[in-house]
C-alpha cells in the first residue's frame, strides 16, 4: 500500500463554508495522452476524515505530462443537503520535474474555490 510519504501527488480538500475538512469527497486523477489528445483515468479516490487523499499515483507511473484532478464537489454538497454553484472542480496541471512532490489543495465553499501548488 502506498504511504503518504511515497506518493508523489497528494491533495487536501477543505470546506471553508463550515471550517472543516472536506471529508469523503470522491475524486479522480487523469492523464492527457498527448498523441491522441484524450484524457485517461489513472485512479479514483476519496478524501479521508482529514480531507486528504494520498496514493493516487505511484512514483513510477508519475511521468511528465498534463494531468487533471477532478473533485466531485457537487456530490459532496448534495450529501450535506446543499446545492453548489460548481457541479465539479477540475484542476489541470503540468508536471515537468519528477524529482519534486506535488501537493494540490482545494479550498472550497458552495460559491467559491481556490487551489495552489505546494
Amino acid at each position, binding site marked *: 500500500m502506498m504511504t503518504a510519504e511515497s506518493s508523489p501527488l497528494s491533495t487536501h480538500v477543505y470546506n471553508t463554508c463550515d471550517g472543516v475538512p472536506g471529508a469523503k469527497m470522491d475524486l479522480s486523477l487523469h492523464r492527457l495522452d498527448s498523441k491522441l489528445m484524450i484524457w485517461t483515468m489513472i485512479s479514483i479516490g476519496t478524501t479521508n476524515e482529514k480531507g486528504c487523499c494520498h496514493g493516487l499515483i505511484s512514483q513510477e507511473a508519475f511521468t511528465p505530462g*498534463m494531468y487533471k484532478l477532478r473533485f466531485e464537489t*457537487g456530490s459532496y454538497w448534495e450529501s450535506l443537503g446543499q446545492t*453548489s*454553484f*460548481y*457541479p*465539479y*472542480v*477540475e*484542476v*489541470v*496541471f*503540468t508536471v*515537468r520535474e519528477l524529482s519534486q512532490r506535488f501537493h494540490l489543495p482545494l479550498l472550497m465553499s458552495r*460559491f*467559491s*474555490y*481556490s*487551489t*495552489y*501548488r505546494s
Partner: protein
Amino acid sequence: MSAFRLQQLKGQLIPETKIPTMAGSPSPLTTHVLNTAMGVPGSNMTIRLYQQDLSTNVWTLITTGTTNDDGRCPGLITKQQFKPAVYKMHFETAQYWERMGETSFYPYVEIVFTITNPDQKYHIPLLVSRFSYSTYRGS
C-alpha cells in the same frame, strides 16, 4: 490634438462596461481576470465560454473573447442565449504567462458552473498567479 479636443472625444466614448451585446443589453454573465502575482489586471487573455447540452452533455462554444486592459471581457453571452444549463469558462492561462516569458503550473483554467436562474447576473472572476488560482460567484 489639443487637450480640449481630447476631452470632447472622451465624453463621446461609451464606457466599455456599457457596450451592449448583439441583443442590445449587457451580458448577464461577466468575468474579470486579475494577475495576483503582479497586482495587475490579467489583460489580453483568451477566454472561451461553453454551454452544455442537457440531453447529450456535449459542449457548445458560445463565445471566444480576449480580456481588455482592465482584465474584463464584455459581451460574453446575450440574455436570449443565457438559459438554465451548465456552463464552462476556459481561460488560456499558460498562453498568458508565456507571452511574458514565464511558465505556468496550469496550462489552462476551466471553471464549470450551473445556472439555474438566468434572470440573475453572474460574475465569475479569476484571480491567478503562476502557481495558484481562485474564483467565486459574484453578481
